[in-house]
């Protein structure tokens, strides 16, 4: 039970092969113009890719090989577009009733009111969309989308037009609705935090290709390639060299004079791109007797530090690699316990578990991800 997607198209460019789990919120995350919305429109049947195979719970919605195409109006979907697409000439109740054309007029009105109540705008039933706030419009669009009792809910950057407070309230609303209805939901967003907070499954999209897909925590913790890492806003990406010269034939990553132990094993040796999350660059306290237990220590000098809210960003230059810059992220309160000064020397630890070794190419081209 899942949503299977195979999409190939030119203008907008799509080259994607993915399976999205049923009953979960999946976020399609990528920069603006990367093809996320096109994927959503293709699922809805609003875009006709050159080659498409879309199956929902085994039922074919699009299959260009079989020349089968289920029109949008017959697909059991609820769609919330970016600007909501509300009907300006109809009241809130009228907007929701439009999704309930299969019911009698009386049933339609009662049912539409119930859906408005469900998203907590029941008292605004007689208002026109222009008389609603951004958050209320979003709730109305959501009510209209779920009124069809869809199998699949598609949300296209639905929080882009609302303020931060409203956004948080709407996150709660979406989560609550998802728990109530258990709908398979696809959320398009370019906001990493939004995806992390709402989705249990994450697909990273770049230039219409799937870079990586999987449980959100897993993808956030271990991006599979450099493009995915950049998409996840990981600034620490470096060039190293994989050697098979570790103990008992294990591999080590040579980074300048540093020989970093690694967990992953690859069949290749030679130049290799690698990275590490700033939060995983660990400051080593000099007063602790580390002995040989310290994993991958790197001596550095502090270049700069900036406090951003509850976070402290520190830029470091390894003593042995003066042209490289390593970013470290600490809780801001750490500054009170360990005052840091630019120019100060310190040692950081790059645990082998946290090192991200990147394959050359993302698995996007025809790549399968579940």
């Amino acid at each position: 039970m899942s949503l299977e997607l195979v999409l190939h198209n030119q203008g907008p460019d799509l080259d994607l092969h993915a399976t999205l789990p049923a009953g979960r919120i999946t976020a399609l995350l990528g920069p603006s113009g990367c093809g996320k919305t096109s994927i959503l429109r293709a699922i809805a049947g609003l875009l006709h890719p050159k080659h498409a195979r879309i199956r929902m719970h085994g039922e074919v919605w699009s299959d260009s090989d079989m020349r089968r195409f289920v029109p949008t109006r017959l697909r059991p979907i609820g769609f919330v577009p970016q600007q909501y697409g509300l009907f300006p000439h109809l009241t809130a109740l009228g907007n929701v009733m439009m999704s309930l054309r299969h019911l009698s007029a009386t049933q339609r009105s009662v049912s539409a009111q119930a859906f408005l109540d469900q998203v907590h705008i029941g008292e605004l039933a007689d208002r026109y969309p222009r008389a609603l706030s951004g958050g209320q419009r979003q709730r109305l669009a959501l009510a209209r989308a779920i009124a069809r009792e869809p199998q699949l809910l598609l949300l296209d950057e639905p929080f882009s037009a609302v303020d931060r407070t409203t956004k948080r309230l709407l996150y709660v609303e979406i989560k609550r609705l998802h728990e109530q209805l258990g709908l398979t939901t696809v959320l398009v967003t370019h906001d990493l935090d939004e995806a992390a907070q709402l989705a249990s499954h994450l697909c990273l999209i770049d230039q219409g290709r799937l870079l990586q897909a999987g449980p959100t925590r897993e993808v956030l913790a271990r991006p599979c390639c450099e493009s995915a890492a950049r998409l996840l806003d990981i600034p620490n990406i470096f060039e190293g060299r994989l050697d098979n010269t570790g103990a008992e034939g294990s591999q080590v990553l040579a980074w300048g004079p540093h020989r970093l132990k690694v967990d992953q094993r690859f069949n290749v040796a030679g130049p290799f791109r690698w990275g590490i999350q700033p939060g995983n660059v660990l400051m080593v306290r000099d007063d602790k007797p580390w002995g040989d237990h310290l994993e991958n220590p790197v001596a550095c000098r502090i270049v700069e530090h900036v406090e951003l809210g509850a976070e402290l960003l520190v830029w470091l230059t390894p003593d042995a690699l003066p042209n490289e810059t390593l970013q470290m992220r600490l809780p801001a309160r750490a500054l009170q316990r360990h005052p840091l000064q630019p120019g100060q020397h310190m040692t950081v630890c790059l645990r082998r578990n946290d090192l991200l070794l990147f394959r050359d190419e993302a698995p996007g081209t025809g790549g399968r991800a579940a």
Partner: protein
Amino acid sequence: MDWQSFSLSLQLALVTLALLLPLSIPAAYWLATTQRGIKPWVEGLIALPLVLPPTVIGFYLLIVLGRQSWLGQAYEQLFGQPLVFSFSGLVLASIIFNIPFAVQPIQRAFEAIPLEVREAGQCCGLGFWQRFLRIDLPLSWPGMLSAAVITFAHTLGEFGVVLMVGGNIPGETKTVAISIYDRTQAFDLAGANAMSLLLLAISLTTIVVSYGLVGRMMNARRPV
């Protein structure tokens, strides 16, 4: 006051409107939604009466509808009278030179409906006709009203094409604009002035009322 000419002009405007508006709606919808390469050509053809002198349109209509043309001959065989210099010919000419005035406002109104709103209709499970009747038509009403008013006012005052195709037959093709011209030629300035004032008042009232209405309707239908 030449009430006969005035009545004829009103009839011509109403008949033109009744025939042209239903044809303009599907044409405007097609133009607003099509991506085909032929679209600019069709738009250019439709806009021609805006740039061509009325006498040029009138001249070609005379050629196409005249007794020597297959259309003119076919009409004469069917109805026993020529198409040119008749009320029917005038209606046909009036429809042709009013096409841009009717099509363009409706096309703009359809184009103003955001794609998201149209697609939301599909996502709500509505078929083509349901979407057209429940979304496109209500949202493009102001454009249709605007098209109707402009077409009506334009037909009421048209002179060049009417004179070329219809001539000056009282009760048949002599419209109020031609009557004003006649009166002026005969130095009956008081008569010409009375008719001109009436035409001016009607045109101004219709346009002001419709602009007010259209403005209010547009505000109510503005996408959010």
